[in-house]
């Protein structure tokens, strides 16, 4: 048995491994470019908050109609939009800052979501919601992920220049549009639909994993905006394959294995990367 066999066999022999790999590939291609923009806009924590915010909507849909894809998607979307608007309202009309508003609401959402699920579901259902089940992705879920990935890529490509300028120099971008700015709305909508897509595979607690971690890792290796995105996708793909194989051979859960791998790559990059890493810091020490 060669090394290649060890890598290829699990995917050729088992449909659930192929589906897991397919969902990782789709999430990598669609979600990771968005993750790059989120790191550039310094909104990764906000993204994390949003990933928990969708839980009550998904949970209500689950309690009323079981693990059906459409109600869960619409429920998540509604909950995400509601929490974001409510956070904006709290930030504007109270003395709370944006981070506090989002934290308050995401904790409420997470607690509320878990309570709703436990009213009707089992512990298995709860685990599914919190951590996803990447080895049990059905065709409908894969289709949803693919549609979201396509929509994300087309939107990012169509508005790419404006979105980059908005991240780099927000006041300049808004001035150039005489105060109108669609970038925040575009980012927000893309974020929520991508979280719902990733939720199926990685759950509400790790949905951001494949989106953000490769983007963080790549910043340590290149300083060119045009290479960061393809390199991040590549990193997400590598992390997915390594994670899934590790899970297959060691029997650890697959979703956490993939996120763990992506996180390890990010951490190693932060230590050893070419730009801005610990290694670069020591090397430039005079």
């Amino acid at each position: 048995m060669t090394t290649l066999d060890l890598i290829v066999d699990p995917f050729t022999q088992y449909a659930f491994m192929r589906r897991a790999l397919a969902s990782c590939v789709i999430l990598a291609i669609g979600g990771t470019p968005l993750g790059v923009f989120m790191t550039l806009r310094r909104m990764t924590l906000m993204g994390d908050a949003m990933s928990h915010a969708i839980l009550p909507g998904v949970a209500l849909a689950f309690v009323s109609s079981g693990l059906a894809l459409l109600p869960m998607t619409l429920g998540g979307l509604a909950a995400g939009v509601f929490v974001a608007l409510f956070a904006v309202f709290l930030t504007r009309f109270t003395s709370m800052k944006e981070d506090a508003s989002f934290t308050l609401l995401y904790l409420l959402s997470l607690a509320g979501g878990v309570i709703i699920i436990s009213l009707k579901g089992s512990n298995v259902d709860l685990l599914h919601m919190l951590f996803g089940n990447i080895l049990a992705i059905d065709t409908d879920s894969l289709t949803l992920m693919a549609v979201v990935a396509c929509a994300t890529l087309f939107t990012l490509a169509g508005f790419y220049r404006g979105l980059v300028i908005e991240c780099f120099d927000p006041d300049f971008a808004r001035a150039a549009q005489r105060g109108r700015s669609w970038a925040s709305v575009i980012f927000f909508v893309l974020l929520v639909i991508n979280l719902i897509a990733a939720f199926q595979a990685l759950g509400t607690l790790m949905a951001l994993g494949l989106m953000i971690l490769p983007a963080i890792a790549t910043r340590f290796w290149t300083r060119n905006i045009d290479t960061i995105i393809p390199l991040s996708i590549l990193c997400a793909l590598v992390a997915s394959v390594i994670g899934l194989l590790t899970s297959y051979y060691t029997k650890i859960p697959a979703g956490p294995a993939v996120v763990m791998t992506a996180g390890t790559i990010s951490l190693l990059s932060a230590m050893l990367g070419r730009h801005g890493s610990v290694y670069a810091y020591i090397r430039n020490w005079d």
Partner: protein
Amino acid sequence: MRDIVTFENVTVRFGHHVALQDISGGFHEGSLTAIAGPNGAGKSTLLKTIVGIVRPRAGRVVIERQTPISYLPQASSLQRDFPLSVMQAVCTGLWGGIGNGGSISKAMREKARQALAEVGIGGLEERQISGLSGGQFQRLLFARVILQNAPLILLDEPFTAVDAETTARLIQIVLGWHRQGRTVICVLHDLLLIQKYFPDSFVLAGKCLGHGHTHKMLEQKLLSFDLDMAELCPGTEDETHHRHEHDHA
């Protein structure tokens, strides 16, 4: 002389805080005006109201014939470590013209190169902006304004935290724009620069304390070195307010 920007009883609030109170008055076409005032006087807000980033709670700002505006934000509002090259960063100035889909022609690239040479950072096109010094970064922002080629130019603290040599070069560029007949409105702190180079001043402290020839503002003690000192020392906010009450008395 026609006014290119006119404020009509403009009031701006952020929550309970009143940033600008009942501002009226116009900026002449072709004028070179310094916006002066203590910290928190609403100087940056005034510029943001002109470009539309901030919307007035009351009143309105009228821009003559939808004049194109070039706006240079405070350097601190930009991400200095953003993964862009100098060339890419300066070309963001073309966005208003070519939008998201248009391509950057060879002629545009050449103009961008000329603009970078004009501000004295020619040859750094391929350098990443994270590798620029504070002065070089400010020069880059000026090159972008040159590339935008707008008749109305708004500059927000362009000489803050910039070395003397850069300031001298950038002042010459501002004076060049003035000679070309462009309207320039510039927020700045340095009273010596205002006195020496800016024919008009707009003195602001929440409301407009005075607007007109700089030498008249100096004569009326609306602009004073005392005021400048208050800005240089942080934590004197209360004293500043106090003095303004005194001014009105």
